[in-house]
């Protein structure tokens, strides 16, 4: 009650928050809305799935949660001991605890995004290896023979695809399974797999046309990926070029301050 008297605006926020929570669980918000993404961040749906997507396959959800809670408490403890936070700053302490707790969730989101970026960079090389073999073998055999040549991150996907095609060689379902595994986040995958599926069920003349289309888009994508990597290296060198200027500016400011202080 003392808390509510100290912070009266809580009276206004609570009913508003209740309405938003009910609307969120009834899926009332559009998927692409910022509010929905913010509420997903708070609700932390499917933490286990996110950990796997981020590459933390050897860590359990429980141990990761213990790590998050423990780290957040440690930060609060340090702030209480050294940072001057007192018993009166309970709201601030809770806020900092929540922020630290969420930081490790945001870390998982960033790791997942980096992993998807890396997969998007490797995918053209993977499909290129398959397309080279499509000149020599039928599509289904080309997938099987490409296992030794594709990047390591896609070996499992190719092996699974080969097994699924063996079980169901005529439909698009095996290819769709691979696309769905990445939830449409690999931008090139859908188009390439559709092209390869069409090739598997067309005449040799049509196959040449599909192969030409496929390789044209793969070459463009490979060049784009290479350009992005090189631009990143070039911009790193450009930023590093600022180091002597920053050092000079810092030293001059420090010396001017000392000189002015001495005067």
């Amino acid at each position, binding site marked *: 009650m003392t808390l509510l008297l100290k912070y009266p605006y809580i009276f206004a926020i609570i009913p508003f928050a209740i309405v938003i929570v009910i609307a969120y669980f009834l899926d009332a918000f559009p998927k692409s809305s910022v509010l929905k993404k913010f509420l997903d961040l708070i609700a932390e749906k499917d933490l286990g799935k996110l950990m796997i997507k981020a590459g933390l396959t050897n860590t359990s959800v429980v141990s990761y949660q213990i790590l998050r809670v423990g780290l957040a408490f440690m930060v609060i403890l340090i702030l209480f001991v050294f940072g001057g936070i007192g018993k009166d700053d309970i709201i601030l302490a809770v806020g900092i605890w929540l922020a630290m707790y969420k930081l490790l969730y945001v870390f998982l989101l960033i790791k997942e995004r980096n992993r998807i970026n890396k997969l998007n960079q490797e995918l053209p090389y993977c499909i290129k290896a398959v397309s080279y073999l499509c000149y020599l073998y039928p599509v289904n055999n080309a997938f099987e023979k490409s296992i030794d040549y594709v990047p390591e991150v896609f070996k499992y996907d190719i092996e699974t695809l080969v097994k699924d095609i063996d079980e169901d060689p005529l439909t698009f379902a095996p290819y769709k399974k691979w696309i769905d595994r990445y939830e449409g986040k690999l931008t090139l995958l859908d188009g390439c797999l559709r092209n390869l599926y069409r090739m598997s069920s067309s005449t040799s003349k049509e196959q040449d046309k599909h192969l030409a289309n496929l390789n044209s888009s793969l070459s463009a994508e490979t060049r784009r990926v290479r350009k992005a990597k*090189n631009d990143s290296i070039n911009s790193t060198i450009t930023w590093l070029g600022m180091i002597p200027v920053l050092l000079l500016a810092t030293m001059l400011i420090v010396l001017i301050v000392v000189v002015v202080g001495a005067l």
Partner: protein
Amino acid sequence: MDKYRNVLIIQAVLIFVAISVILFVIYSEKKQKKKIVKRRNIYSNFPLRSLVTIFAASLGVTLFLNSVENNTITSVMVFSLLMFLLPYALLNNQERLLREAIFDDVILYCQNMAMLLKQSHNAYSSLKKVQEDLQTSLADDVAALIAALDNGREATIESMAIIEKNYPYTCIQNLDVIILHMQFEHANINDSLIMLLQEDIDALEKDVRDNKIKRRILRIQYIFITAACFVTYWFFIKQIRPSFADGFEKEIFKVGNAVYILSTLVSLFFVDRYFNSTTTKE
């Protein structure tokens, strides 16, 4: 007294940082397994003339900086750091030149192989012809591949894996796919596949060459910016030096100069190293 103690502590920290940088460079050089230029004893890689040049350059820079900051400790640190870093910088430069030569050989190998495979449809004879034109270590690896072709599929795959590891370019991997299937599975390689390979090789060569030029320009810009910053700093220090009375302010002044000089030299070395290691990456 406390202020002087703090200045001494800062100087000690600077010496510690300089030694840590040297140890880090030694450690990272040893950790890197793939070295084109051997570096058992760093100075043994250079003839006497180069060593004299390194000594003279280190001494020259130290004397120039000594005119900015007349401090024995700083001068000794700068001289030691330069005598240590300059040979590594020169070796990194040599490695870069070698890597560029190797990349040229890789492109030559892939282009000639594509052309010869199109004409002869025989991987073995094409490899033998192409091997004669290669200049760098790729020639030896291709010779090993030719020998492996006689020993069967497994030996060939092993030899190809070594080549793909030493020369991590996708055109090499794609060419290996074609050679393997042509030699052991008697696959009928049609001209469209060879043309596709040739287009990929041309695209790779163009991209790497464009980036080589861009990065050289960036490197020259970086060196000029650093030199300009040094000269600007030198002029500024000359002007404000009389404003510092003897005592604590002068000590701060000396420490500040030492920090600036050492950090700029170290950052110059690491940026140059980064540049040298990325010129011919795909």
